[in-house]
């Protein structure tokens, strides 16, 4: 559990995924990747990605929770998928620019 403040960088402990927090809620969040807690330290320690959390992350993509108060940026892709407080995060849709014609 950790407070996810903007700019905080975290690594998966079971895959190559690395993220940076764009925005987070006020309280603690249990952030996992591949089913294991993310850390500020060494990263992948050799554990296995949980098969229920193996959707993978994509470089440069943003991930959000359902409440819209958590947004993460993937700065290194990996095999695990992201979840906050046990709920999978979703890929943020790119905002469409308004049509000009």
């Amino acid at each position: 559990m950790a407070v996810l403040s903007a700019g905080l960088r975290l690594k998966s402990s079971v895959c190559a995924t690395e993220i940076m927090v764009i925005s987070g809620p006020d309280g603690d969040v249990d952030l996992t990747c591949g089913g294991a807690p993310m850390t500020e330290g060494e990263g992948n320690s050799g554990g296995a990605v949980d098969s229920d959390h193996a959707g993978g992350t994509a470089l440069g993509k943003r991930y959000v929770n359902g409440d819209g108060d958590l947004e993460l940026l993937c700065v290194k892709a990996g095999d695990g998928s992201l979840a906050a407080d046990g709920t999978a995060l979703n890929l943020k849709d790119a905002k469409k620019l308004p049509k000009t014609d």
Partner: protein
Amino acid sequence: MAGPLSNLTVVELATAIQGPAVGLYFSNMGARVIKVEPPIGDGSRYHRGVKNELPETIFQSQFLAMNKGKESVCIDLKTEIGRDFLEVLLGKADIFISNYRASALERIGLELTGLNARFPQLIVGHVNGFGPRGPDADKAMLDGAAQARGGIANLTGKPGETSTPPGAAIADHAGAMQLALACVTALESRHTTGQGQVVRTSSLGAQLWLHMWELQHSFLTGNQLERVGPHHPNINAPYGVYTTKDAVDFMFVTAMTNDAWTNLWIFFDQPDVLLIEEWDTPGKRIGSSGSEDGVADIRTRLKNAVALKTFEELEAFFDEQPEIIWERVRDHEGVRTDPQNIANSYVVEMDLPTVGKTATVGTLMEYSLTPTDEAVQLPPELGADTASIMAELGFDDSQVEFVETNVTNVRQRLLSALLGTD
């Protein structure tokens, strides 16, 4: 010659760049361009420039660049037969172009409105330094003077240091471009009115045309734009030239999408830059609302990040990012070999006597119905077409001989005086 203007005859009485560049435009478009040169020839025939170990007898670079595809008549317009010849020639021409000073033209009987009166069908095109009216209407000008007076030289260079004019004769070329456009406009007008007219442009006016946006900003806001080194004085954004670890300069213009901006800073391993709201939209990144401190900060971040990468690393990344606008700052060899220039025939090959194959700038315009010649024409030797054109206009052999003997004598006298050998 082929091209959209192959029905036109243009008479050029011009020297150096600004006037001959107008003639070159018409030559490129297929017009017959007759260059009338004084006994010593266009002075650009003798301009050797720097680092030039090639023979003095070849076409020198300035003359070669501006005079391809023209014909040359060498005749002394201070003689009666010279003036007679020009009168007959202008009677058969569509356009007359000159960058001689108006006072010099008047001394040889070529006052512009008088020409228009004598040849009502003729487009009389004139380009000078500072415009046809005002106290400096007849003031001498070379390219740098117009760059200085027109304000552009004040916007290039490092802040607090000496102004640095662009390293190209942009004032001359811009004045020429405007005159070519003005002549074509007058030709179109002739279809309606049935009359030619005098059209005038200047290097000074062209300098204002070249940076209308920047001038308008200063005029409108009351705040003078100032030079900012490798950046643009009116774009408050990262926009500018940056140098890689291995000393390659490239122009970073902008990241047009947020994904591209994200990828850029992930590539630099500095994703925290993405948290800076001042740059988080495409509009902000092209300078819509940047603050002075914010601009300094993002430029420093980008400069430092780029300095840690080799050009090869950057190029490989940029090649995968079509939404990032950037270009390497190329030297002239880079321009010559640029596949884009070659594919568009912007740089073409030509055979030059003595030298052999060399590159030159091509026509640069493409016409679907009336394409221009692909083959590059050589410029003319001085007076190469004097005899044939005089004969074409009805002058006899003795008159041709008189003209050719006269210009040879005058040329020798002038060269002796110039070289101090008399």
